[in-house]
């Protein structure tokens, strides 16, 4: 991958950060911190690696993405809209009655009796600690059918405090589910406090290694590092793979960065404008 390509993606990330904030500002609520920390991870995944087709969102050959940290969905929605999965207008309705895009991702349109699927949303999530099991199940299904599809599960650091997640880690390691790549958005904060001051995950890398996973560690805001890690993870056989992506919660907006206050609230007009200005001048 040449450096111009990375440069282009970096400007795209800047654009995404602004739209994420605008979307949350319009919605009046949401999770800016954990959305902003995800931007480079999702951008690299969707623009450089994912086998998918926004024009045919349910095609069988597609790779699957499970956003286990459902609260980071504004980042996913913004990218899906940019790629053409749905219109940008949908972003304006986020969290509103009758909207396609829910406060946490739902694969089915809510509020109607009809079973209709939302393009780009593979699994309904929002309650932490469940996405990895579902992702492992999808990967296992592909393996049973000798299919080449890859499953990407994007998890949060905080949800590693849920026991159910470790059931999936243990199973995937024991059964060598190697068409699965988990990416942990390790932004070091949970809703109320720092992870390390709540219940520390450390040593996280060693935990995964001891569960028979192959582990990569990257700067989760470096597109180049994420790209390299996914490239290697795609080729590595025999074990499930995890990319521990060290990120900054609220990345890109100085007053949101590393600040638990910005886990789950929308900015007011003044702070919204300030945030946009900051991103533009960065």
């Amino acid at each position, binding site marked *: 991958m040449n450096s111009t390509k990375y440069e282009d993606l970096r400007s795209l990330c800047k654009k995404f950060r602004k739209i994420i904030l605008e979307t949350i500002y319009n919605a009046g609520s949401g999770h800016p911190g954990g959305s902003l920390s995800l931007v480079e991870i999702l951008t690299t995944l969707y623009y450089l690696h994912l086998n998918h087709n926004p024009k045919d969102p349910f095609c069988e050959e597609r790779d699957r993405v499970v956003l286990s940290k459902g609260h980071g969905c504004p980042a996913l929605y913004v990218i899906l809209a940019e790629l053409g999965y749905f219109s940008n207008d949908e972003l304006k309705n986020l969290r509103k009655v009758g909207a396609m895009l829910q406060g946490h991702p739902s694969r*089915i349109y809510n509020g109607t009796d009809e079973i209709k699927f939302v393009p780009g949303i593979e*699994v309904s999530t929002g309650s932490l600690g469940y996405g990895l099991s579902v992702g492992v*199940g999808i990967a296992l299904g592909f393996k*049973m059918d000798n299919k080449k599809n890859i499953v990407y599960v994007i998890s949060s650091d905080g949800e590693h405090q849920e026991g159910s997640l470790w059931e*999936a880690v243990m199973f995937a390691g024991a059964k060598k589910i190697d068409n699965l790549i988990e990416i942990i958005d390790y932004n070091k904060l949970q809703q109320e406090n720092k992870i390390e001051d709540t219940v520390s995950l450390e040593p996280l890398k060693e935990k995964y290694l001891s569960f028979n996973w192959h582990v990569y560690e990257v700067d989760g805001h470096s597109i180049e590092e994420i790209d390299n890690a996914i490239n290697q993870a795609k080729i590595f056989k025999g074990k499930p793979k995890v990319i521990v992506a060290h990120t900054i919660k609220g990345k890109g907006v100085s007053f949101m960065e590393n600040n638990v206050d910005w886990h789950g609230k929308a900015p007011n007009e003044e702070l919204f404008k300030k945030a946009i200005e900051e991103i533009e001048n960065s």
Partner: protein
Amino acid sequence: MIKILDNKPSREGLGEALVELGEIYPNLIGIGADTSQSTSLGKFAKKYPDRFINVGIAEQNAVGLAVGLSLVGKIPVVSTYAMFLAGRCWEEIRQSVCYNYANVKLVATHAGITVGPDGASHQILEDIAIMRVLPNMTVIVPADANEAKVAVKKSFDIEGPVYIRLSREKLPVITQENEDFVIGKAKILKEGKDCGIISCGVMVYESLVAAEILEKEGISCRVINMHTIKPIDEEVIVDTAKRCGCILTCEEHQISGGLGSSVSEVLISRYPLLQDFVGVGNKFGESGNAQELMKKYELKAENIIEKVKKLVEKKNKV
């Protein structure tokens, strides 16, 4: 006379059904949690080892895996003890199975007090309540092994979540093999005009025994096998109410939230009338032989008889 065809646990119907379904559905995947010999899922595992997954003692993961598999076209059947499937995995079942509208079959065995000697930790008496409350879920409580088998087979006609509740203990088999079975359509086992008895699972046989004795004493009961708790057969409930003027519901479950409550919900909005309940009253069970426990916790035919008599007396006073 009630015709008893056999005496075996309803859980055996699961294994028998899956062995047949495995032929028809190459995408059927059995998922167990270290209990497959006792759930009878082992029968499927033996015949189709490549389509069986034992997740170990990790029920939450079993449900999550099932959802993932269903999203790529498999039809997973998760089976373990009801306590650990419905109980421990309630949130996974809500968030991952029902909210995703996943085509996952949950077949829970060892439900109710008839689990016996293992004691209250294993005797779930709350699962009907917590499963039927979930949107998108179908809930079936078969009366015996034959009905269990046909219920498991019919659950494959539904492209969505189904919960089937089975028992550990040997039970009289009172339904024919391959008897007509429509999910959501109750079976009228006996006609009568004085009291309607609506039952499910283990209690269907007890209700028939009670009705036979009552008949001799001059009280005629209409006996309904309400094998599907959700969607419940509203028409048969209203029809029974109109014919009989009072209804007794019988279940091996807490009185709160189960079959009795489901029937009450229909009656109160469509045809309010006298109702009473046979079930467990806000208690945990204990260790003991299944039949002795049914006696102690007032789930036997004699308890049904007593309550029917009181209901009929009340009805006649009104």
